[in-house]
């Protein structure tokens, strides 16, 4: 899976979590929780969606690495390479 594909998948899942948000104008370096007005429940739903779609359960200790879209793409990309996807 390319980073571009990972980014597209994450954006789609974020749009499911926060359907009112304008993902097209999202700053990829911005804190998702602030930029999309999502709370801890929404963030857990995002992590759950990542697990369901990409087959990788992000440990709680790593949540902060997914607080930005760029960070999430980098983190997921690295993990998927390690598990051979």
């Amino acid at each position, binding site marked *: 899976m390319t980073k571009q594909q990972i980014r597209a998948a994450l954006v789609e899942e974020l749009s499911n979590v926060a359907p009112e948000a304008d993902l097209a104008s999202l700053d990829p370096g911005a804190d998702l*929780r602030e930029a999309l007005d999502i709370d801890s*429940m929404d963030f857990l739903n995002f992590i*759950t969606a990542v697990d369901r779609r990409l087959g990788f359960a992000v*440990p709680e200790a790593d949540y902060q690495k997914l607080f930005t879209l760029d960070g999430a793409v980098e983190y997921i990309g690295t993990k998927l390479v390690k598990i051979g996807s």
Partner: protein
Amino acid sequence: MGEFRMPSLGADMEAGTLTEWLVKPGDRVKRGEIVAVVETQKGAIEIEIFEPGTIERFLVDVGAKVPVGMPLALVRGEGEPKAEAAVPSEAKTAAAAPRPAEPTPTPSVPPSPPVAQVPPSSPQPAALLAPTVGRALASPAARRFAGEHGIDLASVPGTGPGGAIGIADIEAALKGAGAATEAPTPKAVGINLDQMRAAIAAGMARSKREIPHYYLQHSVDVTAAEKWLAGFNATRPPATRVLMAAVVLKAVAKAAKRFPEFNGFFRDGKFQASPAVHVGVAIAIRGGGLIAPAIHDADVLSIEDLMSAMRDLVQRTRGGRLRGSEIADPTITVSSLGDRGVEALYGVIYPPQVAIVGVGKVVTRPWVVGKRIAARPVVTVTLSADHRASDGHAGARFLAAIGDQLEEPERL
């Protein structure tokens, strides 16, 4: 022949618009089954029926705005013969929605007790909005509000369904202005945010007008809770992980069971404790507004079940698909702004409830442990409580009980 009526989904609800029937005449219905969808100021609410039987006939068409307590359908009980029952005159009035003729006809069924007397833990269909001969048609909330301000209902023009008088009409009368008007506004995610703001304004204004609040705060070291939660979640997939919010909710629910003076309703001049603990969870709506629907029997749910219920509730709240009992039943409310960085919040009690617990952000603070100072994760839990139902001494014990639960999470 029983009647399925427009329920009261909050102390200040006066009417709702029937938007969908989910059953049809001839269908058998069970207690608690969702049978209709009603549009209210809080969005689209799925309405349950609480008397089993067979739907005999609809009395109200989809699209009609119906006052609280008005019959929506006739329900034939088990073993009851099929009969051509007379359509209650008030239902015809609602469907056509004209101003009522003077004098307003007496309903064809005996009036039930007023909404305010419905037991809090029994989500029965709300009482009939009884328009008796010679009396103005007005919601219970408007009638009470008028009485408090010495307004003669006969002198107030009603702008509600069937000419019913609402709180807005009383307020307009107080100002000496004309009747309030309702401007159509755009919706977001099935929720009219302007209507929701109006509902919040009415509820909170009533709260501050009627309820003598007192406020307490208690700081709790959540080291043990965080450690317990991390261990609990470590081997779980994200779909079944639990948030600290669920742990706090459980702690509040158990404390509420132990201190019943914070769990129930102040109605008709006296406090009525609820035997069940239905915790209202304040859920923010993106774009503005909030709703605090209930998680039923939160004190006896496992942490996993509580989390699952909370997750489902948040999703349906933001999707505009709540159930009537979830709106009507909360016996105490929990509100948290920790995600937004707030360290302490002092809520406004949602009447007729008597308490709201506020939960702040977990912050690292210097904390005395034994004889040393250590950096510890600390959360500030607050209580806004109704002084007519409890005193500060009991409030302090209630907050301490919540703190004790959080410090010994394995007991939850």
